[in-house]
């Protein structure tokens, strides 16, 4: 522990994917995949070390690493991790590592692909670990920009359209964030970008009520907030496997993280005033996403709309502004991230063989490809919030908090669980257990090496389902925003 404290773990964690980007551009072709596997494993190791080294009993920001960046504006590279950041970094590292392994068979412009992926991961780590508002937004945009080429070049199904739609939606969100983040700095005294410091200083109530919607919507677009979620399912569908995993698993969490850390964190009064609106939109998202997922025939669209629905649960938990609701939301961010990554990695595996994602064209996958089928079933059970899986505890916390805050919305949101079960069971019934489709008899199952990343993800879902304290201890210091 004390030895660990000597290592500048956060800069190392941030530098690993950046080094990976730069090295990927120069190493010989055959070393690209081993290099990325090694460095993503290193990032995972560092994230684990961070989680183990984090002192959950004291909480707060730890492992601080502060260096001046642009002195004239008092902008700092201010890295520090609290429990939420630790959990999210772990999620990012897990999805980065498993995503890299799932792309082992990629042979189309590998160099650029892995360079963009590691740049994206670099940005995501930067967002989770930055306490400086400028750095936060800098990394936020670094994380978003590689999505365009990743989908437009390596994607499928209307990839150019999906990539453009995604980028423009997210940048429209950034357009709202630009003036509001700077306004926080200017109104906060114009001498610090530090998020905790700005939160401590507090803002005029009228300012809070004015600025909060800008920040909420700006970040909310990336979190898949209904009704501005339109970019997300199309983006999921078009993206290649590991990009879908990172996109739904981690990138959407950046939006929720931004809402929690910046919007709610700095403007608690604004959050309180707007909470009913936020909660209503979140509930609408839960129900809408689930209903639309029910009617989809494309595997990835089902998962894409389920993400809208599940992220609605996150946003509902955040909107309660209570300790339990926020903890549940953060845990759900983690659980949903791992679960969606598992979903996309299994679907991607099947799609790579058949180039077909129509659910009606499949049947009996559970017998045709038992390993992949089992993993898919595990992900679906987690999606339904079955006890024993990580999302059960998370959703439970959110719904209890929601029922306390808004009984009616809470009941509607819980009804969404039934629809979720309905659409996931429909997929399971048709594709996994229905009569086998003879045309698909030649499907190959996962080889042990291919199964490894997926098994890690499924294992995490069960581990955090049975021992939720692993995550809840990390975030036990989250308090109610509004007492």
């Amino acid at each position, binding site marked *: 522990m004390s030895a660990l404290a000597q290592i500048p773990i956060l800069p190392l964690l941030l530098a690993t994917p950046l080094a990976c980007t730069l090295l990927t551009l120069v190493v010989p072709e055959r070393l690209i995949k081993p290099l990325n596997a090694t460095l993503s494993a290193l990032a995972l190791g560092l994230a684990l070390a961070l989680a183990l080294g984090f002192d959950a009993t004291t909480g707060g920001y730890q492992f601080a690493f502060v260096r001046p960046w642009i002195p*004239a504006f008092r902008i700092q590279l201010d890295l520090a991790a609290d429990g939420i950041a630790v959990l999210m970094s772990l999620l990012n590292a897990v999805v980065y590592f498993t995503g890299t392994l799932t792309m082992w068979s990629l042979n189309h412009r590998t160099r650029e692909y892995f360079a963009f992926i590691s740049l994206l991961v670099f940005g995501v780590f930067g967002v989770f670990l930055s306490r400086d508002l400028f750095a936060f937004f800098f*990394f936020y945009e670094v994380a978003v*920009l590689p999505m365009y080429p990743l989908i437009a070049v390596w994607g499928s199904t209307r990839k150019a359209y999906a990539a453009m739609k995604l980028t423009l939606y997210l940048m429209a969100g950034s357009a709202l964030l630009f003036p509001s983040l700077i306004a926080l700095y200017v109104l906060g005294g114009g001498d610090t970008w530090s998020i905790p410091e700005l939160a401590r200083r507090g803002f005029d109530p009228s300012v809070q009520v004015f600025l909060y919607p800008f920040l909420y919507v700006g970040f909310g677009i990336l979190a898949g907030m209904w009704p501005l979620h339109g970019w997300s399912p199309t983006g999921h569908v078009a993206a290649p496997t590991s990009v879908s995993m990172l996109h739904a698993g981690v990138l959407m969490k950046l939006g929720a993280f931004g809402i929690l850390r910046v919007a709610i964190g700095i403007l608690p009064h604004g959050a309180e005033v707007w909470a009913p609106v936020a909660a209503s939109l979140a509930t609408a998202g839960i129900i809408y996403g689930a209903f639309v997922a029910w009617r989809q025939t494309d595997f990835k669209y089902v998962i894409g709309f389920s993400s809208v629905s599940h992220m609605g649960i996150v946003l509902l938990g955040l909107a309660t502004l209570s300790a339990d609701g926020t903890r549940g939301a953060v845990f759900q961010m983690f659980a949903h991230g791992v679960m969606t990554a598992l979903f996309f990695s299994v679907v991607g595996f099947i799609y790579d063989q058949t180039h077909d994602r129509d659910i009606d064209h499949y049947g009996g996958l559970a017998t045709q490809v038992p390993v992949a089928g089992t993993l898919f079933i595990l992900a679906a059970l987690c999606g339904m919030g079955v006890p024993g899986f990580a999302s059960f505890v998370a959703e439970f916390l959110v719904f209890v908090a929601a029922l306390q805050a808004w009984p009616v919305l809470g009941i509607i949101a819980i009804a969404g669980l039934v629809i979720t079960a309905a659409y996931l069971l429909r997929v399971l019934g048709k594709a996994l257990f229905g009569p086998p489709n003879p045309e698909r008899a030649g499907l190959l199952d996962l080889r042990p090496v291919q199964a490894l990343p997926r098994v890690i993800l499924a294992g995490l879902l069960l581990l955090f389902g049975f021992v939720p304290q692993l995550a809840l201890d990390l975030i036990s210091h989250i308090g109610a925003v509004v007492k």
Partner: protein
Amino acid sequence: MTALAPELAAAGSAIACFAASMARGPGVPRLTARVGVLGALVTLAAALLALTARAEPLAGVYVVDALSQFLKLGIASGVLVAALAATDSTSLRPSARGDLPTLIHLGALGMMLLSSAVELVTLYVALELSAYALYVLAALHRDQRMGSEGGARYLLFGAAASATTVFGITMLMGHTGTTQLTHLGTAPPPAALLGLALFLSGLLFKLAVFPFHAWAPDAYEAAPHPAATLIGTASKVAAIGILVRVLMAVGHSQLLVHLLLLASVASMTVGNLGALLQRNVKRLLGWSAIAHGGYALIGLVVASERGRAAALFYAVVYVVIGAGPFLVVTALGAGGRNPDRADLQGLARRSPLLAALLLVGMFGLAGIPPTPGFAGKWFLFVAAVERGAFWLVLVAAVNATISLYYYLQLIRDAWTGEVSPDAPPIVLTPSMRLAAVLVLAATALLGAFPGPVWDLAALAAGGSLPQ
């Protein structure tokens, strides 16, 4: 001597290029181009050397201060890229090839004199020196219909703007009895405001902002690619720099601020909407330059020291991020053709270096980190919000989102398109390769560490006019 080193280097380079172009033999264009590159390197070195120089060679007429030296550094950087691009001037008819480097350096000399001029007549002469060089550069393709037409249009518009400038200067002089910028005082008499507005409109023409923007797409399209590079980079630095100097001297009256605000918002909107419709890459860059002129004006609208510094910083950032796309155009537009979006198809396979340059340049123009375009916009926006211009920043940020649409389309063409079988292989000269690497390195460095250049810009905007 050190104080005037950049100007002397630019003048020397122009003379050396001219002398080289007088030689006889088939290797002359190449020789001239090389002399041009060498001269640009010397000029850049001189600008760096003279960065901290402070002098008043002609009191009240010509000063060497933080602002002028900062601008000269930006101009010299743009000239280096243009001179490197000029090595690839096979597209020009042979008799004009020698003129290209000569005129680039002559234009640079004019821009450098402009950045140091603090007296209206001197300022006007310097403005014309740079303008004449650019007029000729824009019309070098006089054997082609488009070249002569675009060049003539630029010349006519430019002459009209010059006349407006002179008219404004005479009114200013008549009402204040002086031609020295410093003596115009912080509040010129109301009657002189019209003169000032006319004078400024001549300068806004150089920056190509609304409503003086119409020439830009035509001139970009008509000019040989290296000349367009100079017009698109270095001349913007000079234009923003001189606007900063004039506004610093005469102060910001309410009327001026309103006019600039109008020009700023209209430019970014008109520029971006215009660019949406373009298929020709150079015309697109021309329209996008109008939008960027509008962004830079934000720094002048807010009328604060930080705003002026942000505008100056943005001008230098624009040289770095704007140069890349022009280099791509130069490489693709062999034979003087103006590449359109179809020519970009499959660029990533034909030349990964150029595709990377285009990607970085486009993300830079769109203001996305880790390119310096992000810091440039951020600083401008901070200066604006500090003065309460929340909505102006929102309009600018929405505009940046709109611009992303056409920037991304170029990236998509370059990165996903299939190579057409009859596309000639791209051969990059060593100079072009060097230019591409330099631009990429500068982008990465300035994007990750904008601090030092910002400090220079802040110093330049600090009001160092001699009292």
